[in-house]
């Protein structure tokens, strides 16, 4: 492919940019046959694959997290999008009909029969068309958040809500990041009470896996109790406490 894709994560090659002075992102632990043929293929007994999306803004650590948990060297592929599919700025830019975006992904073998793919998905609203295809068939999503720029995550969270894809939020902790109380973060990100909010260090395998475990726990809760709306106590925010009775909660 001759064209240069828009690289979403500048930290792809070097771990986190600037914030993490040291150490560099550790290599995926014991990646079997990384670089060799032996680890290239999915184990032959696997009968099917599932996928999760890792979403968030530029530089939030999606590629780092995928590289940390993946059993293969993270791969990159280019999604080619038609602007016509976007339906938003087609009229404004009639000469430019396609654009590409780099998507990084990794793989985790779950057991002898199932393999899990993690697709890093750029958060910006303009990539929503790419999301629609990727989100189709995804079990859920892990939304990465950087507390130094919470607003950068709003598009990704909004896209997840628009697509109806269940998700958990993981704050990727950078040294020197501001720390907030959980209820402050929940309010700022406007999360439903049932949406898990965890901290993780995308460079750390166990920490990243625990974030994925929080997501799976949420998916199981959602599947076991598919009724919309929180099954947890009411949100700490005052949003719904003073509305008059004509406004009924729908979520």
């Amino acid at each position, binding site marked *: 492919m001759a064209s240069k894709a828009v690289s979403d994560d500048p930290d792809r090659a070097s771990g986190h940019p600037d914030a993490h002075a040291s150490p560099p992102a550790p290599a995926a632990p014991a990646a079997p046959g990384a670089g060799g043929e032996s680890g290239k293929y*999915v184990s032959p007994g696997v009968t099917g694959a599932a996928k999760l999306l890792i979403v968030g803004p530029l530089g939030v650590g999606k590629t780092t997290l995928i590289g940390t948990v993946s059993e293969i060297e993270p791969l990159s592929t280019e999604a080619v999008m038609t602007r016509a599919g976007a339906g938003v700025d087609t009229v404004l830019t009639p000469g430019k009909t*396609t654009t590409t975006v780099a998507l990084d992904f990794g793989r985790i073998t779950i*057991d002898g029969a199932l393999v*899990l*793919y993690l697709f890093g998905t750029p958060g910006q609203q303009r990539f929503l068309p790419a999301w629609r295809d990727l989100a189709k068939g995804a*079990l859920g999503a892990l939304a990465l958040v950087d507390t130094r720029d919470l607003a950068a995550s709003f598009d990704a969270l909004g896209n997840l809500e628009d697509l109806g894809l269940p998700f958990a939020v993981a704050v990727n902790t950078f040294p020197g990041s501001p720390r907030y109380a959980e209820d402050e973060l929940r309010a700022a990100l406007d999360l439903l009470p049932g949406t898990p909010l965890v901290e993780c260090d995308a460079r750390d395998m166990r920490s990243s896996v625990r974030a994925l*475990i929080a997501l799976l726990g949420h998916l199981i809760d959602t*599947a076991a109790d598919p009724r919309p709306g929180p099954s947890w106590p009411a949100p700490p925010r005052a949003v719904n406490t003073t509305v008059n009775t004509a406004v009924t909660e729908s979520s």
Partner: protein
Amino acid sequence: MTDRPEGRTPSAVRPYVITRGRSDTGREPLAWETLVMATDAAFPPSLQPEHHKILTHCQGLLSVAEVAAHLGQPPSVVQVLLSDLVDWGLIVIRPPIAPAEHTDVTMLRKVLHGLESRL
């Protein structure tokens, strides 16, 4: 790369040529996580080089996304070429977990336990 004023396919020139103009196989494209593998059938000598390359990469199970990454081609192109190969009996597929099973708690627990075993 040339801007295509009335581009009807999502591909640039080269991918368009590779797929001989096809961006759509008339059916649902293979999902990125669909697993594919070459069959034992002998490669017909008339194969396009890109078809041939796919088959050499698919000596074991790989996802559509991995095939695309190894080939350096967009998945949209690889999806079309893989569909050809499926039609010709040169590639077999293992479809992803069906949407109906996404809320299958047993399956989700399996994924959970698989992740926990990595801790």
